[in-house]
């Protein structure tokens, strides 16, 4: 009889060989728990990420912008639905995940704990935050859990569209009046630290359980460097500065040098003490409670046999 340790070693060997794990496959508890926690947080972030942009739908400056922002918010909610379904197969019900989210027992991404003060923030969220998300999400296309990879294929395709939407908004602002340029620059200045936090602190690869199991495939720092290389030159090309006096590309080392942001603030925010955490959770809970009748109606429909 094969011991748990032997099965775990065989499982790890499969991952190291590039095999993909399906929901019905045997998996060690540590893998299941790590994958569930990671995907659940991703799903939470998608549905919480709807809220800052949703606030701007009624205030969008034109009908076209209103339609395109509405479609983006709908996509983000859809990503949440797809990801909760993937997470459910790892052993936790959608209802429990939502209950944990709205009651502050689970986390969502740091950037969605901040206010979206101006239309410039909508451009920053659409271009730079979705850009940061796309850098991290593309790295997940090669992750070890097959259902997550399938979900990410769809999500990345839609995020690419959102990126265009965000870049289009940005170009309109930076090529507009001085006030519009200032509005965008001000938004970049306020969002830069949360974007640096978005990638997380530099991690030690040998101590990162998500890297160990192939759920994540690249380190936080590797992803942050890719973000710098992709977006900082584009910002500079538009005459937009970045509020980090130490940020520079070291040609000899072939990497970006940057100042460490305040990681205490990051930990405070992800623990639920961000400037908008309670307001956003209040809204999410109110919507969840208001729509309880839909879930109750569905629960009363008898399942059919096919």
């Amino acid at each position, binding site marked *: 009889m094969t011991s748990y340790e032997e099965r775990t070693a065989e499982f790890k060997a499969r991952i190291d060989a590039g095999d993909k794990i399906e929901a019905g496959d045997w998996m060690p508890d540590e893998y299941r728990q790590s994958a569930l926690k990671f995907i659940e947080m991703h799903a939470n972030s998608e549905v919480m990420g709807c809220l800052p942009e949703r606030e701007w739908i009624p205030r969008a400056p034109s009908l076209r912008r209103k339609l395109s922002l509405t479609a983006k918010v709908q996509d983000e909610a859809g990503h949440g639905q797809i990801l909760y379904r*993937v997470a459910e197969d790892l052993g936790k019900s959608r209802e429990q995940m939502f209950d944990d989210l709205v009651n502050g027992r689970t986390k969502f991404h740091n950037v969605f704990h901040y206010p979206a003060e101006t239309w410039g923030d909508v451009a920053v969220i659409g271009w730079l935050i979705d850009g940061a998300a796309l850098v991290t999400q593309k790295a997940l296309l090669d992750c070890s859990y097959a259902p997550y990879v399938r979900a990410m294929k769809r999500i990345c395709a839609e995020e690419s569209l959102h990126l265009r939407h965000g870049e289009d908004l940005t170009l309109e602002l930076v090529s507009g009046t001085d006030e519009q340029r200032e509005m965008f620059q001000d938004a970049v200045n306020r969002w830069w630290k949360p974007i640096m936090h978005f990638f997380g602190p530099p991690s030690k690869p040998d101590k990162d359980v998500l890297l160990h199991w192939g759920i994540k495939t690249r380190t936080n720092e590797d992803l942050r460097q890719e973000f710098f290389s992709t977006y900082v030159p584009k910002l500079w090309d*538009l*005459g*937009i500065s970045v509020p980090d006096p130490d940020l520079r590309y070291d040609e000899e080392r072939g990497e970006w040098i940057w100042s460490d942001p305040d990681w205490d603030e990051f930990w405070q925010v992800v623990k639920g003490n961000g400037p908008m955490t309670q307001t956003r959770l209040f809204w999410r809970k109110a919507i969840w409670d208001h729509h309880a009748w839909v879930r109750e109606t569905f629960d009363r429909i008898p399942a*059919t046999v096919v």
Partner: protein
Amino acid sequence: MTVWDVLQRRRAGADWEVVGAVKAPDADFAMMLTRESLFRRKEGEAYAIRRRGTETLIECEDTTGLGGVIDREFRRMDSFAGVGGKHRRVHEEMRERGLVIDRPRPPDRRQRRSAKQAEDDGEAARA
């Protein structure tokens, strides 16, 4: 509630492939949820659902609605066609106004790719 696996056929004659799953009380709801959550943008040529643990495929009979009334121009990539060109134009405008920030930066992806290609070609020639 029942879990339904969702399958897609990318083009006529291609094999079915699993692209996700939905949870719904019956096949009608599952079909509707599938269309709204996974096929809003006319992805693929056809789709089907299969109650998890069974073999019977239920194909979507009418795909004309796929990417139809809900597939507006602002949902598609082509609605933002030309953003790259617009970026270059705005960049030129900023250069003329003296606003561009000119600092060392990594070679762009195309340059990195062609440098890598030249390296590979060199190695191949040496071999």
